[in-house]
């Protein structure tokens, strides 16, 4: 499984309230909800994002609320992978459970810049920055979590048991 795309770069502590503000949480349709993804810190995101693009951020990405709407709107926006120095734990769980690929890699999170073209190989955890030619080793998931990711989420995984 691979991801390839252009990078949207953000900083530390990107919280779930800026990923999807609570004023939109009553919206049930994921596509309609995704129209507001990141709007409080990056109004251009929804207009610029292309299928396959990659989000890169620094520490504690997805902190705050447990709303699963946050990884969901990122996924529905077309983002193929989120790379961060660290993820907040509920976001981490939610991303795995809904099948949004995420990967922790402090070096890549620090180096990669907005607009870079990046490739990620999930099986090996290797992140390659095509713009700079630099390669990074991201943290691989434990086997149990890989099974959930391969099943494309917890619900499918349970159904397969």
């Amino acid at each position, binding site marked *: 499984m691979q991801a390839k795309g252009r990078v949207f770069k953000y900083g530390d*502590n990107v*919280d779930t*309230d*800026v990923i999807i*503000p*609570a*004023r939109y*949480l*009553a*919206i*049930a349709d994921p596509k309609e909800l995704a129209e507001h993804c990141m709007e*409080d*810190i990056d109004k251009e995101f929804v207009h610029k994002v292309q299928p396959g693009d990659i989000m890169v951020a620094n*520490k*504690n990405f997805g*902190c*705050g*609320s*447990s*709303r*699963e*709407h946050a*990884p969901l709107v990122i996924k529905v926006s077309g983002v193929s992978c989120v790379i961060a120095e*660290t993820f*907040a*734990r*509920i976001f981490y*769980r*939610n991303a795995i*459970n*809904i099948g949004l690929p995420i990967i922790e890699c402090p070096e890549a999170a620090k180096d990669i810049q907005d607009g870079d073209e990046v490739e990620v190989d999930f099986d090996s955890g290797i992140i390659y920055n095509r713009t700079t030619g630099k390669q990074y080793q991201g943290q691989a998931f*434990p086997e*149990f979590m890989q099974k959930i990711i391969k099943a494309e*989420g*917890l*619900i499918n995984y*349970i*159904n397969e048991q």
Partner: protein
Amino acid sequence: MGMTMTQKILAAHAGLSEVKAGQLIEAQLDLVLGNDITTPVAIREMGKLKKQEVFDKDKIALVMDHFIPNKDIKSAENCKCVREFACRQEITNYFDVGEMGIEHALLPEKGLTVAGDCIIGADSHTCTYGALGAFSTGVGSTDMAAGMATGKAWFKVPSAIRFNLVGKPSKWVSGKDVILHIIGMIGVDGALYKSMEFTGEGVANLSMDDRFTIANMAIEAGGKNGIFPVDEKAKAYMAEHSSRPYTVYEADPDAEYDAEYTIDLSALKSTVAFPHLPENTRTFDEIPGGMEIDQVVIGSCTNGRMDDLRAAAEILKGRKVKKGLRCIVIPGTQKIYMDAMEEGLLKTFIEAGAVVSTPTCGPCLGGYMGILAAGERCVSTTNRNFVGRMGHVDSEVYLASPAVAAASAVTGRISQPSELGL
């Protein structure tokens, strides 16, 4: 090697004699919680499972609290979806308008959470029940769906940070100041993936309401859970509120901690978290004078309990909310509302010029009941001050205790009670 209090609860619920930090386990759940924002998504996900029935209709709690009484058509439809699910599945603990409260104030009050429990909730502040010596943690809607169907959840066993509390807090210093101080010290990711275990002789000097506030905000330091030892105060609380049997777990003397801090409660001062992170804490010697504000909110799952309302009322008694400032008081549950009424607290608030609302999460997450305009500033007893949290992206939220919020409501500036001669 010994286990922490959290590790012991997880081991018992995984049917293991021992667990280690980092180990992946599957644990049996005593309670699965959801609200009107997260449950509709969980119901949708549960619809994709082969198993369509809940594992135990008595071990699921559905609390309509974020946007109710419904603020608009979409939130009404969300509640309707949950109401029909609760009816269809015969959920015992479904709480709607008239019975509801803010979930984390309501469930302990109803006796649904006790020491030794293993609880997940599709709400990040589910960590509140650690005040009673339970393991409880926030998850998303898919985990909630899986938990409702199977009665189980997967966990990575957390390592822990120990906070040794000593001393007694001074008059206007509350649990909110304790937890804001800790978050300021370790940062919003200072306890990422870890348990925050509170111990020490100072625990006895904290009321149960203070402990709920402290455990509630463990998530604001990135924590998986916050947990307190089960002492006489906790046992008395459970005896008053619950008929469920409970189990007391204690950390082993040789349990390992990633870090240990000693907090002298007697040295703490009123603390305010400035925008836009709960870690941006300042005490009043670091706060510029004359910081004018537009609104005060006293309530939420963090600070909507009786101790909180009593502290605010003690300050507002015989005083007036500053002209031009909105002061919104939100009791956490119907029982707290009633108790506050019988104690005369609501009269005090109304006479002071505050408004009193039915229980709701409302303004805390910028839902309704006190949304801020661009450039406005609010002192709030809630738990998050992120960009746009309470309304416009250019508004500001300052997190503080009920005492500081009430004093600020009187002066119209960010103030502590001593400015009123208290």
